[in-house]
């Protein structure tokens, strides 16, 4: 059996699922962000795979993946800045401690 697109997509889906699990279950804001990054990574894998198998010449998926990475990087930078800011006020980055706003 040759390794083809389905294998890659399956791998990506599993990584996405694991990331989703982390995003839902982790209690530390940084940890959640890391899980989200894992999901982003999975998506990128998806894109690159599709690019290679579906549009090998145009490489559209690769460009998509590049931009996606840029965005992820930007977001993680911004997010970590936010976490640091919160940490400075509350001395905690636990999500369960952030329930002041509700209703």
């Amino acid at each position, binding site marked *: 059996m040759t390794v083809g697109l389905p294998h890659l997509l399956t791998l990506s889906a599993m990584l996405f699922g694991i990331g*989703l699990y982390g*995003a*839902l*279950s982790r*209690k530390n804001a940084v940890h*959640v962000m890391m899980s989200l990054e894992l999901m982003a990574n999975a998506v990128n894998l998806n894109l690159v795979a599709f690019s290679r198998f579906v549009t090998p010449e145009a490489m559209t998926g690769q460009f998509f993946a590049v931009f996606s990475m840029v965005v992820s990087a930007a977001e993680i930078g911004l997010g970590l800045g936010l976490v640091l800011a919160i940490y400075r006020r509350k001395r905690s980055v636990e*999500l*369960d401690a*952030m*329930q*002041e*706003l*509700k*209703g």
Partner: protein
Amino acid sequence: MSMGYVLLIPLLPALAFAVLAPMPRTVRTRLVPLAVGAVLGSLALSVAAFLAVWPGGHVGEPTWQGAVTIAHVGDRALSLGLALEPVSAIMLLVVAVVGAAVQVYSLGYMHREERIGWYYAALSLFTAAMLALVLSDNFLGLFMAWEVMGLCSYLLIGFWHEQEAPRLASIKAFLTTKVGDLGFMLALAVVYAEVGAFDFATVLHHDWSAGTATLVALLMLFGAMGKSAQFPLHVWLPDAMAGPTPASALIHAATMVAAGVFLVVRALPIFEASGVALTITLWVGLVTALLAGLLAMVQHDIKKVLAYSTISQLGFMFIALGAGGSTAALYHLVTHAYFKSLLFLGAGVIIHAAHTQDMREMGGLAKKLPVTSLAFASGSLALAGIVPFSGFWSKDEILTVLLHEHQYAAFGIALLAAFITAFYVARLWFRVFTAPTQQVGLHEGHRSMLAPMAVLAAITAVVGFFGPTLGEFLGHEIPWPALGTAAISTAAAVAGIAFGWWVYGRTTSVVNTQAIKQRFPHAYGVLTNKYYFDLTYGYFVVGGYTALARGLATFDGSIVDGVVNGAARLWRSLASVGWLFDGRVIDGAVNGAASAVRAAGARMRTLQTGSVRGYQTLVAGAVVLLVIWILVKGA
């Protein structure tokens, strides 16, 4: 000769009202002569109009007619019009004469009243309406005038509204007659649906089927019963005596109450087309004549005696109508109008003099009030039906008609009623005029009061002789009474008077009714309680309605408001089972809906826990549901 002045006959008093009504009280008082002048003008014009018709006029062929269209609905036009023909001419004379007499009389009777101006305004409006009613050439105009008279009656009964009794009496009178008016109004609706017009010529010449005719006739009869105080709608008239006596004389004796009779006279062709309606009319009249007469026997208030007498006499007129004798009815209407107004005016003088209306406190007035007693005697004899006073002739005519139509049972009852009439007349007369004197310092009425009475007394004394002339004029024969009938009726009348003398007149002491009361406790009780009509109406109709209205008002505040928002309420109870129903059932509209929404909102809000992980789980859950839905859909 232009007859346009006929228009002025109702218009003059109406103008008098229009001038008086908006004025301040003091100005009104000063303008009273204007009102009197207006009615005298109407009288003069009425006489002229009468002479223009008589002799030579024919029923149904107006000598003069004028109409103005007040409404166009599609291709149909509704108009108000006046028509001068024999019936209206005669009625004009009656109304104008009595109206003028009463207005002149009131100058004396009411001169101490602060609000005499208002009294005259109302009286003028009434006169105008009644004149318009008799002149009207269609049912719509008749109805409108009819209603306006009802208003005036209300105003005049409640003239002394600071007192409780007149206030209540006025509203009672208005509403009771209004019950009848409903019938009249529906009759008009039926007529309109059937014929499409209201004028007498078209409506009466319409080819009525028996069924529709019966419906219309009965509805009109119902209206007439209200206005003419026939059983069982008679209850308002005795109470209406709380108004000023001259007003009673005009409205509740001579004219307005006769309007019902007049209506039936006008609509008689429809009654005849029905047949059944005539029979019912007859029996309404019979029952009323008899029962009201009986009630008159036990009243102590002089005006109430006269009031029940009026009801009873109106009953006689209905009897005549029921037997198909419209001319006889009209004849009795005319004579009754004169003698009954005379009696009321006399009663007014007596009341002024004695400062009471209770006959038990009167006595021996014949000597103190000679003119009045003479006039009163004239009226009484007419009422009792003694030759040659007017009542005799007309009552005799009614009995003749009954015999002629072979209504023997009715004849018997009518005769009995005539006997009773004579009895209570005697009772009244003997109690008031010949019984022992109980008061001192009594004085005769003012000239302005006596003069009209004299005129009316004279008319009462002689008008009977014009019966055949009247009949001719109206196109029906009114024969001189047959000797047999006359004998029977006179016998009944004399017997009644004799019996009355035997009970009330032969002793020189005050008669104690206590004895009679003890002798016939049940019968007497029934009579003094007026057959329990008032109690029944008061308890069931008025009380029932009041209770119903209160109930509905509560209902409106709670249930209706609630039901309209039933959905919201249901939602509320569904939205949260544990949410305590706060018990405010009343006025749930916005409250209910709003709190339902608020409760639902509060539920929604519980999802908003503030926990990021919770939110993420909810989001993921929704996504998972989406995934499952798509997979299931695809499968």
